[in-house]
């Protein structure tokens, strides 16, 4: 298969995706969840489906600019989301209003989440820090086991995956929350795993294919590992997609970025990581040539 020859196409596709995502993010803004902006979420079991307006009649009494979403299997629950940071007492007052109107018991207060305004920036700072540390650790390990160029190519593929996932979130305006952070870190671990399998084969083939060019070696290695790459991503996606379809809301928030990330990770380990390595190797070889001529 001629993968490396079409590097420009693959890079172009990825760059286009990332640029569009970042532009959308810049102009329309990211749909940040309450864990990043600060705010409150309450989930209440009403026992019947009520309209959004009906729920808003109650929340507006508390001067809340709240989003109302239906939840539960039969849409008998509502989720109230607001950027206002409500304390325990205020949350209880709102629940009590629903409780009175719909004859609820305390058990119907299914869930409440509240984030102070300062928490969001801390979560993102910690997330960024952990991604940098994880990437540095992987770079060290790959440089030690393979070579530095493999390490850098692998890390670029990783950054690519993270950016593509973020771009998908921006383009489709999916709410971003702290599950996304954990999911991205998982993708980082998973996608490098994929890349290593290809690199490992390149390392092995270099020994057997002495005279072949770097491009040929990479193409051959990608082809040899292709069914493995596809099958592994497929089995992982089978489980995660099932989880997404059947899981509750909070597990869906976790599964969605994993689905996006695993698919992207499979793509990048084939179409991004190895081509980068080839380009760098060839550049180095040619540079060496010119030097001996001059």
């Amino acid at each position, binding site marked *: 298969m001629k993968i490396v020859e079409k590097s420009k196409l693959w890079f172009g596709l990825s760059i286009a995706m990332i640029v569009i995502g970042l532009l959308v993010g810049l102009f329309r803004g990211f749909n940040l969840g309450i864990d990043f902006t600060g705010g409150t979420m309450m989930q209440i079991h009403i026992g019947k489906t009520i309209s959004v307006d009906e729920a808003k009649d109650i929340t507006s009494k508390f001067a809340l600019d709240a989003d109302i979403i239906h939840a539960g299997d039969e849409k008998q629950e509502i989720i109230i989301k607001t950027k206002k940071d409500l304390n*325990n*007492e205020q949350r*209880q007052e709102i629940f009590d209003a629903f409780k009175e109107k719909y004859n609820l018991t*305390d*058990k119907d*207060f*299914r*869930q*409440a989440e*509240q*984030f*102070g305004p*300062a*928490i969001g920036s801390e979560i993102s700072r*910690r997330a960024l*820090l*952990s991604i940098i*540390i*994880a990437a540095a*650790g*992987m770079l060290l*390990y*790959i440089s030690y*086991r393979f070579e530095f160029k493999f390490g850098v190519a692998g890390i670029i593929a990783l950054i690519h995956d993270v950016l593509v996932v973020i771009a998908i979130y921006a383009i489709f305006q999916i709410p971003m929350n702290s*599950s996304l952070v*954990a999911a991205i*870190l*998982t993708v*980082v*671990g*998973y996608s*490098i*795993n*994929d890349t*290593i*399998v290809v690199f*490992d084969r390149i390392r*092995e083939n270099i020994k057997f294919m002495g005279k072949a060019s770097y491009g040929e070696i990479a193409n051959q290695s990608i082809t*040899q*590992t292709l069914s*493995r790459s596809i*099958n*592994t991503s*497929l*089995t*992982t996606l*089978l*489980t*995660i997609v*099932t*989880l997404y*379809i*059947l*899981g*509750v809301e*909070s*597990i869906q928030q*976790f*599964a969605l970025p*994993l689905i996006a990330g695993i698919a992207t990770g499979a793509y990048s380990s084939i179409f991004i990581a190895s081509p980068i390595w080839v380009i760098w190797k060839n550049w180095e070889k040619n540079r060496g040539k010119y030097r001996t001529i001059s």
Partner: protein
Amino acid sequence: MGMNFKNVLALLLILAIIAASAIIGIYGLEIGNVKINPIRESMRLGLDLKGGVFVVLEAETNATGDDLDKIMNQTKEVIERRVNIMGLTEPNIVREGEKRIRVELPGAQNASDAIEAIGKTAQLQFIKPNGEVVITGSQVKNAEVVFEKDRGNIPSVALELNSEGAKAFQEATRELAAATNINDKIIAIVLDNDVISAPAVQNEIPNGKALITGNFTLEEASELAALIRGGALPVNLVEVQTSAIGPTLGIDSLNKSIDAGTIGIILVFLFMLVYYKLPGLIADIALVLYTSIVLWTMVALKATLTLPGIAGLILSIGMAVDANVIIFERIKEELKNGKTLRASVNAGFSRALTTIIDSNITTVIAALVLFQFGSGPIKGFAVTLMIGIFASMFTAVVVTKILLKLFISFDVFRNTKLYGA
């Protein structure tokens, strides 16, 4: 023939062990005095699955350094005491960063009440037998453990009151010391409606210094001193983050995740069987063992299973298959290169091993970072992921190899078509 018989026995034994680990995991076991609960019952569940509350409280104070540490320790003690009264099974209270305290209350039924109980100002009171309140916590300046030299260095708790408290205390002790009936001499020290000490007053205490004596151990005395010191919450607390999950939602999440996991695993089983045939079947058997090992290890380590943890577990099943996929693809290649079945299997395993180790170690690096920097449920996810990686290396490499070699020793299974060649 004798060789073959031994192999049949070995194979059956391995299969029996794997089946037993799974069946006991699902249904539990009870033989005489030995009782093993099913995994579902023995697994420690995070509060997102069990229901419960966690709240992060921030102290409103400008204090720094040792002063801040003192305030935070006192606050933590007050909260611990209140939480203990709730009688929950595994509460967890930790200082987080500088000014924050994270309180986790798995199984708390009424979130709102629990948060209120933690945040309210504690009432420390000294009460006379007639019910009259003599002093309150705000009038105690300090309480610390002292050792009474003349009573063989028994630990007691010394109180220091402010001037207002000292005056009230002097009047009350004068009155109680003069009483003749022992019951009239008792001054009750009450914290949050709970009598923590009821000493009898012997003499009038004029200087605002009182001693609570009793047969305390050092630990008890320190605890008492801490409680009295901490009786009045030293600082106002604000909720910075809360998550309250009702028990119904938790159980619902757990059930749905188990269903999703089961269906996901069955799909993976079918895929492996259809695509890789006999090796696929062996990978499926190894996968059953893998799932039991991960779950039983979590039970043994008393690790907490959280919702992201379930996602991690299900994800790791997909990844566990990966090691087998790498090996089987390798075996197929070797078969295509014209090697014999036995040689292909050996080459497949040995060549795939470095790939599997290298790719898994990079994932371990990610899991370690997650564990270090994540909080609560995310930590749970990292633990599950790590246990999963190590278990999958064992089952995919060691167990599959043994099984595959046993299968190959039987003539029936020696057709290379069964291996996808």
